[in-house]
């Protein structure tokens, strides 16, 4: 696994599975309670709201590069942490699920940052959150929730494959 300790990789894989489970729970509740089941119906709204999708090029199988992948993974998670925070007030039914997803995403970002520090590759200044989309109605927060959860799932699937590759003894 190169410079990455096995326990760190196992923890990352565990955290990814947890965040994916949280994301699935959020999607299921959005569908069941608000009939918002299809992210593809919200593409236009996503553009209008300006929901960013962080790059993960260094984790793709074509250009797999460990340190670059870790950096992109951390800044992507950090961005999702901000997006999930911007969805606060989504709805009483969804709030607990959204909180758990946000807490687990934050923990995962911290775990990676800690490892980058241990490897001496963490930037001197911790990242700060950019401007987030402004969700101006309950519907926009829920639609945003569908889009963010769906994007996060694909983001993690790519990262999971990459880290599984690094975790192979």
């Amino acid at each position, binding site marked *: 696994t190169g410079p990455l300790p096995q326990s760190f990789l196992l923890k990352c894989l565990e955290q990814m599975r947890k965040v994916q489970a949280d994301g699935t729970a959020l999607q299921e509740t959005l569908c069941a309670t*608000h*009939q918002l089941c299809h992210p593809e*119906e*919200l593409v*236009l*709204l996503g553009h*209008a709201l300006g929901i960013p999708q962080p790059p993960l090029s260094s984790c793709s199988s074509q250009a797999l590069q460990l340190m670059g992948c870790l950096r992109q993974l951390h800044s992507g998670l950090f961005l999702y942490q901000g997006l999930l925070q911007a969805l606060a007030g989504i709805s009483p039914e969804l709030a607990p699920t959204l909180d758990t997803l946000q807490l687990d995403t934050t923990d995962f970002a911290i775990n990676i940052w800690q490892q980058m520090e241990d490897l001496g590759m963490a930037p001197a200044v911790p990242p700060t959150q950019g401007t987030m989309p402004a969700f101006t*109605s309950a*519907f926009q927060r*829920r639609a945003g929730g569908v889009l963010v959860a769906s994007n996060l799932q694909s983001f993690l699937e790519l990262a999971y494959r990459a880290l599984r590759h690094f975790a192979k003894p």
Partner: protein
Amino acid sequence: ECGRINLPTPTVHLGDPLTASCIISPNCSHLGPETQIVWKVGRESQPGKRQQRLEDGSQEFTVTIPRLSSPRVLLSCYLRWGHSLQMLDQAEVQAGYPPAAPHNLSCLMNLTTNSLICQWEPGPNSHLPTNFTLKTPFFWVPGSRGNCQTQEDSILDCVPSDGQNHCSIPRRHLQLYQNMGIWVQAENALGTTKSPQLCLVPMDVVKLEPPTLWALPPSPEAAPPQPGCLLLRWEPWKPSLYIEQKCELRHQPRLGEASWDLVGPLLSQTLQYELCGLLPSTAYALQMRCTRWPLPGQWSDWSPSLTL
């Protein structure tokens, strides 16, 4: 923002029609030769009605749902975009009825919790979130002649915990020996209503805990009980010792279908009673209950069975 749904009101009467509009902003309507809107009520498409252009260049598409038949409806406005439908906005419409007047309001003064516990029946479901509040005037006012006319200004609100149809008014808000007016208010998005007012004196609806009952073993000093008789002793519930009470005893052979035999009234000064007329070698179940007396009060539950 591409499109926004306008609702006249988020809550309507069940069965009434609803007209809503979807306003498509100018920066969105350039997306195709001709803006096409699809409405969905829940998952079913609903044909739109009119469409008109507003001064600011945006377009208003209107839809009318003839009859809202379910308490919660999700209304969505989609834009046809190439081969896909893009959801622009979604609104939740609640449909129901104004609240029915709560009824069968009744109260009991509970000396264990030292509070007046009132309960009521909410009446038919209005299908809308409805808040029930028990209301009573805050203070007895000298000169209010002790009847139940209430001054509207100082009203105490007792809010039941979620979904409960009972509420407890703590001792510090009660004048135990004065008339108090009490009623329940029900409120939802379509209206407010009140139960008839109850006029009561808390102590007159006091419900005691059952007394403690036991059989006295034959003792050398006292004369032995007559054959077929039993010497019983009881003690009113301790916190109610200051209240004059009368009690009732009931007994029933434990086997067979015989109904209860009732003995009473037994005044709370006596505390002892010789029960006769019992069948020999028959197991009996005995129970006792008490009520405030001669002043008004509610009967306690029957005490747990004493089996002999």
